[in-house]
């Protein structure tokens, strides 16, 4: 198991390399001279020249790439002149909003999705199965940011039960935080639950056909024990795959949803920076989010090894 984990960790290195390279190249795609835009509207020509030198915009691409990686290895993602602070500081102070949102969404989506999937599989071909699958398909088809707006209109504007947006930190006011996070979390969970429910159902249907499930039933074991101990445990690997993929979608979903609910997370930061054309922040926010996702995938891979020992020897 230790060897397996080590190998997985090593395999993340080329992915991280490609991710950082892409992030670097995005800046190179921007047409025109960006040093003026990075400096902001009231930058003097001398400041712009300084930025140009600091970002190496006057030097060849390769040289800039070497500098970018040098800085990256020191944990330096650059400096935002528009916010007047380092990119690392700006992005990391926003993570405590984005990560809990994505995590809560993932937990709720997984809970609802697996439950719905199990119900549908156990009552295969019943009205329950069919309506669960219709709900899953609708969840798949609804744009999440729009669903968030609909929830705001319903619960915020019309009923007035929950705030239409805004944020209080959970250390300041826990219940206020819960109220702010309820609608965003529900939005993410409902739109992602469908994928998980569909995969759970098909995986459970495969497993419920197996001989060992029939044996367990013949031995007269309780239904709940059979479903959760015998069937679900063996159906978990494909479910975990989907949950891992969902984590990525949720991470980017959180980025978009923050703009809907005015939550001050990494997403709002990136979107705001797009309007300000603050490229260091866009670059840094993108890179940090991608790195978080790489590590989530890594955790999922390791989870496979734990769930299914065969995976450990295979690779």
């Amino acid at each position: 198991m230790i060897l397996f984990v080590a190998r997985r960790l090593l395999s993340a290195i080329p992915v991280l390399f490609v991710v950082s390279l892409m992030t670097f190249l995005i800046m190179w795609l921007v047409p025109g001279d960006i040093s003026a835009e990075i400096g902001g509207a009231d930058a003097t020509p001398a400041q712009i020249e300084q930025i140009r030198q600091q970002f190496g915009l006057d030097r060849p691409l390769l040289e800039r790439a070497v500098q970018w990686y040098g800085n990256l290895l020191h944990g330096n993602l650059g400096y935002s002149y528009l916010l007047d602070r380092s990119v690392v500081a700006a992005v990391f102070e926003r993570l405590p909003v984005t990560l809990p949102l994505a995590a809560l969404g993932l937990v709720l989506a997984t809970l609802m999705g697996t439950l719905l999937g199990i119900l549908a599989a156990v009552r295969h071909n019943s009205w329950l199965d069919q309506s669960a699958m219709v709900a899953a398909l609708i969840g798949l088809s609804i744009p999440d940011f729009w669903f968030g707006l609909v929830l705001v209109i319903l619960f915020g504007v019309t009923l007035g039960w929950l705030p239409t947006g805004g944020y209080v930190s959970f250390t300041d006011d826990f219940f206020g935080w819960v109220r702010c996070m309820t609608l965003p979390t529900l939005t993410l969970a409902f739109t992602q639950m469908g994928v998980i429910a569909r995969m759970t159902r098909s995986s459970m249907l495969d497993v419920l056909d197996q001989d060992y499930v029939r044996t367990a039933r013949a031995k007269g074991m309780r239904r709940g024990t059979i479903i959760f101990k015998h069937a679900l445990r063996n159906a978990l690997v494909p479910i975990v795959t989907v949950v891992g993929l969902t984590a990525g979608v949720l991470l980017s979903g959180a980025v978009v949803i923050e703009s809907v609910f005015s939550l001050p997370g990494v997403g709002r930061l990136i979107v705001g920076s797009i309007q300000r054309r603050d490229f260091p922040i866009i670059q840094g926010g993108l890179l940090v989010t991608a790195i978080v996702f790489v590590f989530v995938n890594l955790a999922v891979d390791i989870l496979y090894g734990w769930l299914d020992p065969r995976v450990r020897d295979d690779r």
Partner: protein
Amino acid sequence: MAGSTRGCAMTADLAAADSAISLRAEMARARRRRALQLLRRLVGHPSFLVGALILALFVAVAVLAPLIAPYDPNKNNYRYVLMPPSAQFWFGTDAYGRDILSRVLYGTRVSLLISALVVICTGILGTLLGTLASYVRPLDGIVMRGLDGLMAFPGVLLAIALAAALGPSATTVVIALTVTFTPRTARVVRSGVIVVQGMQYVEAAQAVGAGHARIILRYILANALSPLIVQLTFVFAVSIIAEAILSFLGVGPPPPAASLGNIIADGRSYIQEAWWIAVFPGAVIAVAVLGLNLMGDGLRDIIDPRQRNER
């Protein structure tokens, strides 16, 4: 096939040519029969049928938008500002008095056009890269690692950053979404090609001296296409949502041109007093995407039963 053994046994040139002609006719007939069978199964599949009808409706709306739109989508009319849905304005009006229904119709046109372009570009690029990776072995590692790297960016985040770098326009959205959706498509093509490559008929084609182009096009791709078609249906669905997200965030086609996403963005500013601005375009997106998902599910059931994840 029965015809080919008969053809080998013949020695006279004339008879051989004769049987080759009849063999060709036989194959054409078989192909037509198979196509007809597939069509019948597709039409008989309820979710495919419903999905295809919804898509057809949307294509019709997109094409006919200038004819069926009741008002000019970009014309301000300050006499009717923020009017709720009524007989005169079915979907209401926005803060400039523009008719939401007309804007939604034109927006559908933009969304469908962009998404269709994304599907075409993704299909071409994904097929090229996927075939390249599996057919030219030494390239496999490099191409797939590059694609893995692209897939490491969560969801549409890469598209958002790309669109931000390139500046807001419809072309930008097409490029950004193609880059985002190509890796998974290339993967699907690659795994299909790898399976087909091991088949005996490919070996047979190599043995009779068919060129690489002929082997790839006639033997490998022709037999590895069905997972790609299913995948592209889902790319279409996701592109519609992604285009809306990009427009909503302000990196899509710039206003005043209507796109479903930027109408919703307008609606967000007036969410307290005019719910209809945001609600209708989103509902339209949801129905279009639902149709495509239904179609994709149906297609997968019929032409690619191995890939399906539900019964």
